[in-house]
């Protein structure tokens, strides 16, 4: 029991929370990205997929709640860690040089904050439609919510597309350090596997970035187009 209490208040537990919640969020990102890529299969495929997700009903809310908890834990723990780290060195160096620490590792809190702001905007934009209420009224020929057209319309706005593109680049930058770091925190560090883990970190971060980015870029370049008959309000 005492060991458990100690565990719950320890610095290493905070790190484990960061790693574990981060892992879930990365898996979610991969799933989300795979779903998005169905934009390339056309309106019907995309809207069928979206409807299937909506059809999960109660389960969808359980998944949403779980992801929300992961995100909140990730954010709160990072703030706690940052606060403690900030206090651990009250007097700064007059001269500072980094030998090894990567830029990605040193900017986690900033990329993190920007990603958090982006996620808030993204939910208001495409999920709640608060910024663009007209999205709620888009239906396809089969009477389903027309997610496909919503996305194309959304990204047709160059400014919005640029925000999404910038956010995905920041996300990849965050993930370069995050994925590799997760292994170390969970105790996986072995000469034999370290190059593989490093490669995996770069690869997964790049796949997520390119996968997500390709959609606003596809819309901007006209590779993904509005289906006939959608009236732009």
């Amino acid at each position, binding site marked *: *029991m*005492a*060991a*458990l209490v*100690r*565990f719950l*208040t*320890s*610095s*290493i*537990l*905070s*790190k*484990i929370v960061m790693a574990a919640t981060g892992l879930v969020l990365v898996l979610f990102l991969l799933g989300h990205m795979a779903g998005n890529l169905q934009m390339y299969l056309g309106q019907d495929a995309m809207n069928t997929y979206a409807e299937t997700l909506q059809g999960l009903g109660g389960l969808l809310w359980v998944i949403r709640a779980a992801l929300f908890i992961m995100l909140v834990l990730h954010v709160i723990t990072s703030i706690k*860690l940052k606060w*403690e*780290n900030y*206090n*651990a*060195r*009250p*007097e*700064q*160096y*007059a*001269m*500072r*040089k*980094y*030998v*090894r*620490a*990567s830029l990605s*590792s*040193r900017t*986690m809190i900033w990329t993190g904050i920007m990603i958090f702001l982006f996620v808030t905007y993204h939910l208001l934009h495409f999920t709640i439609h608060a910024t663009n209420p007209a999205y709620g009224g888009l239906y396809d020929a089969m009477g389903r919510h027309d997610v496909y057209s919503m996305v194309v319309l959304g990204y047709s706005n160059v400014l919005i597309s640029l925000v999404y593109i910038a956010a995905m680049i920041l996300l990849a930058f965050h993930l370069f*350090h995050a994925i*590799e*770091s997760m292994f*170390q*925190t*969970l*105790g*996986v*560090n*072995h*000469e034999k596997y370290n190059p593989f883990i490093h490669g995996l970190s770069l690869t997964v971060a790049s796949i997520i970035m390119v996968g997500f980015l390709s959609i606003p870029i596809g819309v901007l370049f006209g590779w993904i187009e509005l289906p006939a008959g959608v009236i732009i309000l």
Partner: protein
Amino acid sequence: MKLKLHIWRQKSTQDKGKMVTYEVDGIIEDMSFLEMLDVLNEKLILNEEEPVAFDHDCREGICGACSLTINGIPHGPEKETTICQLHMRHFKDGDEIYVEPFRARAFPVLRDLVTDRTAFDRIMQAGGFVSANTGGIPDANAIPISKKDADLAMDNAACIGCGACVAACKNASAMLFVSAKVAQYAYLPQGQTERKRRVLNMVAQMDREGFGNCTNYYECEAVCPKGISVASIALMNRDFLRASLSEEKALDR
């Protein structure tokens, strides 16, 4: 060789402290960095000024007393070299050099460049030992230990407790030091009995001392004069997790 030095001067822990610029001349490239500071101090004493206080003892890279941050890098620019073993040949005539203490809340400055690193001693007291009955010296090789494990234990035992890892870390985290001290026993059969209790108690003490948290920058590994690897931190994370989940009580002293 002539140098311009920007040195941190602070009268006491309470004092605010500031960077002060000095010029030294007549530095020979075979001098160590500390000998260069000796030259400066002699000049200051002759001028009836207060000499610069800095920690040092063995001056041969094995005691862990010397602790200077040179141009933003603890122990200076040479890899796996303590500042007492850094020679002036690595600098050029006319160089400007910033000399600062190892900065961390857990290492308060006592005076100028001297910091109080007893936080490390308290972490050692919390678990950095093996309990053994005294008696006759055991026979050599009576307990078989593989070459690989012996090497890994020795690599970690090479840590001299200087605190450069804390000084280099953006978060002033002590994970590299503590993990080296956990790992040096974890690889040996003698360390197994107290293995779980050791990691729990040492990490708890580390947290109490007010060090920051490791965010895997690996800056510690880059500056460590003994080349301690961050693989030891991963080992400590593993051991800590396992011990937390299986040890029913953590024994406090």
